[in-house]
C-alpha cells in the first residue's frame, strides 16, 4: 500500500490560513490503513482546524467526508455539495488523491494534509516500512524476494557495498544490509552461484515516468 503521514500541524494550519468553510476529505484506502487519512484522521484534522480558528477568533466551519478511494473520481459524488460550499479542501488522500480531487474541482484550492512517503507494508503494529520503489521492472525473482532497489540505501544491483558491518546498513544501522539478507536467503536456497551473475544497468525508463497503463480488454 501507499504509506503516508499527516503533515506537521503548523504547516497545515498555515496553508489553510483563515479559509472557511474547509472540506476535510479522507480516503478509506491505503491512507486509512496506515492511520494517516481515514475517517478518524479526518475528524482529528477538522477538529484541530476548528480549534485553531476559535483560538485565533476566526469563524470557521468544516465538512468531513471520507470516500472509498480518492484515486478514482467515480467515488467523488459524496464530495460534490460540500466542495461547492467550501473555500478550500484539505485532502488526506495520497498524492494521487490530492491530484484527482484538484482535477475534478479545478476552481478550488486543494491542500495536501498528508505527506506521501512510499509503497510499503506493516509487520508490526504502528510500524510501516518501505518495500517497493515502483521501478517497473521487478527483479525480486533473482534476489530471493528481497528488493535491493528499495532496501539497499544505494540501490545496488551488484551489492553489497563496503560499508555493511555485522549485517547492518552503513547509512542507517537500524536497517539490515539488503545484500546480506539476499546472500543469506540465496545461500539457504542453494542459489549462491546466481550472485556471481553481473546484473546489467537497469532500465529506469520502465518505472517512474512511464505509463499510462492501457488495458485494451478493459477499455469500454
Amino acid at each position, binding site marked *: 500500500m501507499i504509506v503516508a503521514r499527516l503533515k506537521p500541524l503548523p504547516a497545515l494550519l498555515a496553508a489553510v490560513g483563515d479559509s472557511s468553510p474547509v472540506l476535510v476529505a479522507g480516503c478509506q484506502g491505503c491512507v486509512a490503513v496506515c492511520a494517516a487519512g481515514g475517517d478518524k484522521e479526518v475528524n482529528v484534522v477538522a477538529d484541530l482546524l476548528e480549534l485553531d480558528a476559535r483560538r485565533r477568533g476566526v469563524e470557521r466551519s468544516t465538512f468531513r467526508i471520507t470516500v472509498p478511494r480518492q484515486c478514482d473520481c467515480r467515488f467523488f459524488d459524496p464530495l460534490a455539495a460540500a466542495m461547492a460550499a467550501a473555500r478550500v479542501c484539505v485532502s488526506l488522500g495520497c498524492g494521487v488523491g490530492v491530484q484527482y480531487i484538484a482535477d475534478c474541482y479545478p476552481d478550488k484550492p486543494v491542500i495536501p494534509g498528508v505527506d506521501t512517503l512510499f509503497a510499503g507494508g506493516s509487520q508490526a503494529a504502528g510500524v510501516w516500512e518501505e518495500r517497493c520503489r515502483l521501478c517497473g521492472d521487478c527483479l525480486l525473482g533473482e534476489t530471493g524476494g528481497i528488493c535491493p532497489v528499495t532496501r539497499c*540505501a*544505494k*540501490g*545496488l*544491483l*551488484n*551489492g*553489497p*557495498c*563496503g*560499508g*555493511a*558491518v*555485522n*549485517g547492518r546498513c*552503513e*547509512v*542507517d544501522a537500524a536497517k539490515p544490509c539488503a*545484500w*546480506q539478507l539476499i*546472500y543469506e536467503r540465496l545461500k539457504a536456497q542453494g542459489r*549462491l552461484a546466481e*550472485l*556471481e551473475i*553481473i*546484473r*546489467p*544497468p537497469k532500465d*529506469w525508463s520502465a518505472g517512474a515516468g512511464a505509463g499510462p497503463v492501457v488495458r485494451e480488454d478493459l477499455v469500454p
Partner: protein
Amino acid sequence: MTPVSNLQRVLDQGHFAVTAEVGPPKGASGEEIARLAGLLRDYTDAQNVTDNQAAVARLCSLAAAVHVLRAGGEPVFQLTTRDRNRLALQSDLLGAASLGIRNVLCLTGDHQKCGNHPQARGVFDLDSVQLLETARRLCAGRFLCGDEVKPPPRFFVGAVENPFADPLPLRVLRLGKKVAAGARFIQTQAVFDLERFVRWMDAVRECGLHRRVYILAGIVPPRSAGALKYMSRIPGIIVPSALIRRMEAAQDQAREGKRIAVELIRQLRGVEGVRGVHIMAIRWEEAVPEIVAEAGLLPRPGGEDNNRSGNGREEA
C-alpha cells in the same frame, strides 16, 4: 598489450606499486593539489584524486586530476556513481581520456547521507560493477546504448574493495564480479587489522583472483591516537585496540603513526598476492615521502627518466 599508464607499467613489470591519495580542496584553486602532486610524484607511481570523498562537496576529481597532470604527476581519476547518471559517467570518462588521464578508479561512492549535503538526491543509476563494465565497453568502442565511440578511450581501470566488511565469502564473490567486469587493480580499505586482512587474502588466493587483478593494500598513517580512534568508528574499518593503546602510549604520536604505517607496509609486502600499497594520508600528505623511504620503496621505477608512457607528460 602496452601499458596505458605508468601505474600499469609498474605493476605489469612486477614492481611493488605505491600510490597516494590527494584530496581536492573545498575551494576554487588547484594550487594545493599541484603542490601535493609535486611533492608526491617522485615517491609514488600515481596520485589518486578523490571524488567528493565521504560525500563532501569539493573541487571535482576530473579537474583535480588535470592539476595533477600539469604538475607532472600521474593521476588516478576517481569516479563515483553517486553523483552521476550513465550519460554523465560516460562523458566524464571520455573527457578524462581526452585530457590525458589514463587511470580511473570506479566506485559507487559513500552515501550522500554521510556527507555535508545529506538532503541531496543520490543518483546511483549504475553501481560500481556496472561502471567498470561501462568503462570497458567504452574502451572497446561502444557506449552503453551501443553507439560507436570514436576514437575510444584507453584506461587502466581499478576498483575498491573492503576486506573488513562481512560476510567474507560475499566480499570475495563481489571482488570476483569486479574483476570479471574489468577491474585491473584494486585498492583496499585501510588495513590496520593485519590478521583479518591476511584471512581475506587467503580467500582471494583460493579463488585465484590474485593472479587476475593487482591488489593494492590501503594504508592510512594515523597522525594521532585520536585520529586512530576516530577511524575505528568508521563503518568498515577495524582498528585493533592494541594499536590504539600503542599510539596513546607514544611520546611522539605522529612519529609513531609513521612507524606503524611503515611496519604495515613491510608486513603487507610479504603477503602473497599484495602487489602494492595505496597510502591515504589525508591532510598529512607530507608524511608520505618519509614513509615510502623508510619502507624501503625508493627509488620508484621509472621515476628518473620520463618514459611514463601514455600519461599527460608528453601531451601536456
